[in-house]
């Protein structure tokens, strides 16, 4: 049997390679657990939010949930990059032959003979250079070879993962604690819109499981509406549009399945007549007008929803559709209520004070402003977009109740009449009251009483008004150039315009 000749320098070099790998692994594992924890939390944050909602009844703020998730993702990826960087750094720093020799020396209890050999005969030293060492060098070589005869770098320097993982656990624990604190700071009771959105989402997910493509399409529409509802950056108009799309898809689905819920509602017990004025206009809205005044149509919607809900003959799918309609209607009501409250409109109870002319707050209108309790409680179905479509546009034709339908919301912004609209001139049309006035012109006294109680001096320069008040739009001035801006005309000049 040929004896194996051990080259101690090669053994030391092999040990160095092994030590480099071990060092890289140890350094990389130091941040591995926090990185994986961050990524895992980022992946499960939505589920955690759902669990928070389902178990605790609180919801993570959707806007900040995304930010938190992004932050966790970035932190996890940064930690992973840090792992790689640290591993690379450790790998480079472990590239030290003397250090490896010391480790080998400790492993074989070589009394620094391995270290001495490595310091005198590194891999860069040629055999000729080695021969020029001290005469005792061959003896040192033999002794080192004897030490390393049964030395295995892989077994001597095993990958040890426990200690770096143990060291990194506190960091991961701190990360989890920080995240928990952040989650506690971000949770809040859900808003009404979020409640509706979650209901819609749940129903959409239920629908998505259906094999029917129509159901899937409807599910996607409802899901889009739910997402729009939860998106705080989306303006209410767009949310309403999404809901209207979902509602129209629902209607199409309904028409494919059988008789419409409206008809069913009509055939039902009629308990939906919670608002007589609404019911009176159920069948009248067949055109596609753009009517914005929704007071009467909302009343109609209530009747429809209630009637459908009480239809005992509907199949289970229809029942689900009815529930969907109800939820969509509630969501619409929530948005409209929210939009009304955001626009600084007077509260419904104050609408009859005539402070401002806002949609739905005109005391002459009959609409949601007069039904605040029903909307707030959500106990009655709200009108849907289809009801709006069926509502006759140009509400002025329908009588007095539609007078306030065009009420502008901003002073100084004159309403732009459509083709079918016109404004009354003074003296025409039904008698107008002061509350119908869009602008009020005040007649100021033409004479000023002296403060000192002396002679009364007439102000001849002040223009006098010809009519006490008017509801007339200002006369369009034929201008060559489009004005840059529109400004409110001072009251003193308004009666000069005819």
């Amino acid at each position, binding site marked *: 049997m040929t004896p194996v000749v051990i080259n101690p320098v090669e053994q030391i070099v092999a040990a160095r390679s092994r030590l480099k790998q071990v060092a890289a692994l140890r350094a990389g594992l130091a941040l591995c657990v926090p990185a994986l924890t961050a990524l895992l939390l980022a992946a499960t944050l939505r589920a955690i939010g759902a669990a928070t909602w389902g178990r605790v009844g609180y919801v993570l703020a959707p806007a900040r949930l995304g930010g938190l998730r992004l932050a966790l993702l970035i932190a996890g990826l940064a930690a992973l990059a840090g792992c790689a960087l640290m591993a690379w750094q450790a790998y480079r720093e472990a590239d030290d032959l003397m250090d490896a020799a010391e480790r080998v020396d400790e492993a074989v209890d070589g009394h620094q003979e391995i270290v001495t050999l490595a310091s005198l005969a590194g891999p860069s030293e040629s055999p000729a250079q080695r021969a020029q060492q001290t005469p005792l060098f061959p003896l040192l070589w033999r*002794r080192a070879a004897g030490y390393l005869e049964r030395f295995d770098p892989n077994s001597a320097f095993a990958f040890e993962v426990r200690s770096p993982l143990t060291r990194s656990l506190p960091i991961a624990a701190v990360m989890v604690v920080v995240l928990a604190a952040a989650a506690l700071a971000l949770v809040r009771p859900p808003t009404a819109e979020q409640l509706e959105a979650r209901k819609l989402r749940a129903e959409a997910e239920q629908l998505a499981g259906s094999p029917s493509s129509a159901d899937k399409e409807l599910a996607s529409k409802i899901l889009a509406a739910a997402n729009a509802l939860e998106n705080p950056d989306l303006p209410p108009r767009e949310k309403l549009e999404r809901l209207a799309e979902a509602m129209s898809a629902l209607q199409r689905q309904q028409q494919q399945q059988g008789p419409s819920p409206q008809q069913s509602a009509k055939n039902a017990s009629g308990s939906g007549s919670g608002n007589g004025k609404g019911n009176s206009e159920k069948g009248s809205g067949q055109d596609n007008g753009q009517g914005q005044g929704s007071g009467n149509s909302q009343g109609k919607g209530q009747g429809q929803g209630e009637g459908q809900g009480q239809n005992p003959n509907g199949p289970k799918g229809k029942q689900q559709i009815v529930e969907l309609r109800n939820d969509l209607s509630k969501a619409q009501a929530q948005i409209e209520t929210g939009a009304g409250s955001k626009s600084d409109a007077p509260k419904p109870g104050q609408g009859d004070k005539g402070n401002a002319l806002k949609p739905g707050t005109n005391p002459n209108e009959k609409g949601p402003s007069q039904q605040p309790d029903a909307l707030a409680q959500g106990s009655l179905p709200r009108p849907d977009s289809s009801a709006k479509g069926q509502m006759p546009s140009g509400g002025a034709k329908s009588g007095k109740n539609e007078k306030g339908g065009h009420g502008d919301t901003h002073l100084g912004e004159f309403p732009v009449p459509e083709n079918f609209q016109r404004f009354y001139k003074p003296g025409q049309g039904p008698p107008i009251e002061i509350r119908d006035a869009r602008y009020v012109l005040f007649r100021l006294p033409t004479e000023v009483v002296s403060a000192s109680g002396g002679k009364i001096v007439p102000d001849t320069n002040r223009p006098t008004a010809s009519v006490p008040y008017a509801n007339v739009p200002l006369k369009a001035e034929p201008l060559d150039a489009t004005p840059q801006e529109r400004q409110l005309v001072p009251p003193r000049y308004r009666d000069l315009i005819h």
Partner: protein
Amino acid sequence: MGAAPQITPTERVAEFRRTFARAEAEVGKVIVGHQDVIRKTLTALFAGGHVLIEGVPGLGKTLMCKTASDALGLSFKRIQFTPDLMPSDIVGTQVLTEADGRREFHFKPGPIFAHVVLGDEINRATPKTQSAVLEAMEERQVTVFGITYPLEPPFMVLATQNPIELEGTYPLPEAQMDRFLFKAVMGSPKPEELREILNRTTGATTHSAQPIFTPMDAPVAIEHLKALVREVMVAEPIERYVIGIIGACTPNGPGAIPEVSQYLRFGPSPRGAQALILCAKVNALLDGRVSVSYEDVADGVAPALRHRLLRNFQAEAENITTDSILDQATKRLKKPRA
């Protein structure tokens, strides 16, 4: 010095160990106990240094030195240092001789011309006389009337001094203290050792050391062994460890421990580092190795550095010894990799 014998490194190392062990054994035949002092004395001999032996009278310092030289077959001279001792009494002088009707000055070598010179109670001589030994210790030569006379290798000075009876003594200057490789402290014998001393010295049987080498072969053989010591290899981390020890023992130096800065005025010189390395090399050979380990270095810290540290007044007042400071320094000093 003759040509190096054609023997393998392994045989050379084995020969060193054999010679050292035999010398220890031969000295041990006469001197009871004090193995550490004997070992350090022989270590200094093979390292090419000098030893200052400190101990109270009657412990066998002089006997040990003479026995060591006898065991190795080296010439031995003893100088009793007294206050009236003159430098010429040590190094020699020119004497006027008359031959064939002519009068000429001839150099009469002093007792310094020997392989092993024992300066007994060296601190009792005046500094002028003590300094006469300086050149011999460091340069291994003496100059008399402008003429330099080399000292035959191996040359070794073994000096003794008494830690008590300091009246009428002249403490060795730092420059001279630094020239001693080791300072060995000879303590009182243990009861068993004292009993053995009584048996050996009061009986009819006399004990003497048998020379290992003949007087003719001894210088060459010992020089070969000294050359072997110099061939022992030292790794770079070991050198850094030695440097770290020196730095730790230097007041306000890099890595100095608080005790060093508190109790020392001066630390060891570079000769201290040289002494550590040489001592470590001998220790490595005695262990059958041809490279120095950390343990070899640590073993020589106290004897090689204790006389190179200059204590301040506070340390003397608090009776803080240099050995305790060295012990603290070496304990706190981490090895390079650790």
